């Protein structure tokens, strides 16, 4: 009985470990390459997010606001796509489908240069659930 229980537990642990690994891989596969807030800050610096300034800003100035957007993403969670468009301007990147609000913060001129974008992930009701900084292109 004890050995059966131990077997069951070990199989369960292996299954859970495998599922966890699979989920991690699937998440990376699904989302592609992303950057944490600290890495975004280290790469592009930091500036206070300002809706009007963001709309008019050059790509390099937008990039400086990315870390601040990530830090204050709670204020965007639950908003509709139309509200994001109103606040940040027209979408200009691309993430899996035309539905996701995306904003380019680094633009590569060729395949050797990376392109990065801010992506507003959506929930089942198409409201913002999370903000990520995602590599649009390319895998060098």
């Amino acid at each position, binding site marked *: 009985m004890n050995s059966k229980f131990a077997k069951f537990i070990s199989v369960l642990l292996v299954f859970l470990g495998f599922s966890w690994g699979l989920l991690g891989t699937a998440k990376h596969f699904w989302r592609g390459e992303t950057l944490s807030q600290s890495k975004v800050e280290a790469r592009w610096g930091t500036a206070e997010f300002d809706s009007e300034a963001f709309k008019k800003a050059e790509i390099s100035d937008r990039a400086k606001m990315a870390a601040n957007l990530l830090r204050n993403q709670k204020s965007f969670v639950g908003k509709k796509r139309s509200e994001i468009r109103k606040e940040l301007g027209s979408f200009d990147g*691309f993430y899996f489908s035309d*539905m996701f609000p995306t904003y380019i913060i680094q633009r590569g001129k060729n395949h050797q240069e990376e392109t990065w974008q801010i992506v507003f992930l959506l929930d089942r009701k198409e409201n913002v659930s999370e903000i990520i900084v995602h590599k649009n292109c*390319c895998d060098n």
Partner: protein
Amino acid sequence: MSAKIFGQNIKKLRDRDKILKQDSLPKSKKEESPNLKLSLKLRSSNTIRGLTKLFLVIIAIWNSPALGDEVRAKVATDDCLNWFTRSKLKPGKGCLGKCVTIPTDMSSFDCPNSCTNFCDSSLGTSALFNISDLYPGLTPAEKALAAEMPSKTLKAYQLSWKAEQICLGMFPASLTNDASDGCRHYMWSALMTKDFGDEIASKFLNAHEQDPEQPSEEKAMDIENNKLGLSAASLIIKSKKFSEDELSKKFQQDLKSGKIRVLKQGDK
């Protein structure tokens, strides 16, 4: 007579003992007959089938409005019933696809999610409709298509990925409203025309453009480039030279000649 029956009973008992002994042997010593292997295979496939069904049921229940706020659901149902009745749609084949594209307002915003109920969709279709709801990148019309044609939807999704990859070979990034956007729509249309024929490809393309929040000029651009992709594929298919290279060449020609519709040129 009784001795004969007694003898038979003894034989039965011996046989049972043999079976019991074999069952108590370590697994490696047991003889695995082909029948046993087959039954194990069947048992595992039944388990997988059972787990899949369970998963579908859980998702269907999870997405069911019954789990939400009852009062809100009741009000929503009444509003949605009026919304559906006004459309004069009849339950049955093709209803779901049309239902999800009925225009909505503030009171009927969530109603397309109830279309499977109004259209008397089968349990499988309803479950698939609810599951596709988990993928937020789909328009309601695409969710309806996913419920009605699940395998084709999966293929269409794969082709959209392929289209993006082809276009990333031509452009250094995937952007919106520029030539790379035009390319994605052109390629996706063409690849679907090749795989499904133009009728089903058009269904998927139209469903993709049923996003009520997309600005009209962007929608017009997408529709125009979809049409170009469809006709390019038809031409190449007729010439029996269909390949990704041929398609890319045709796209480059159409881009140079100014046929591809774009709203933005070059870098910001």
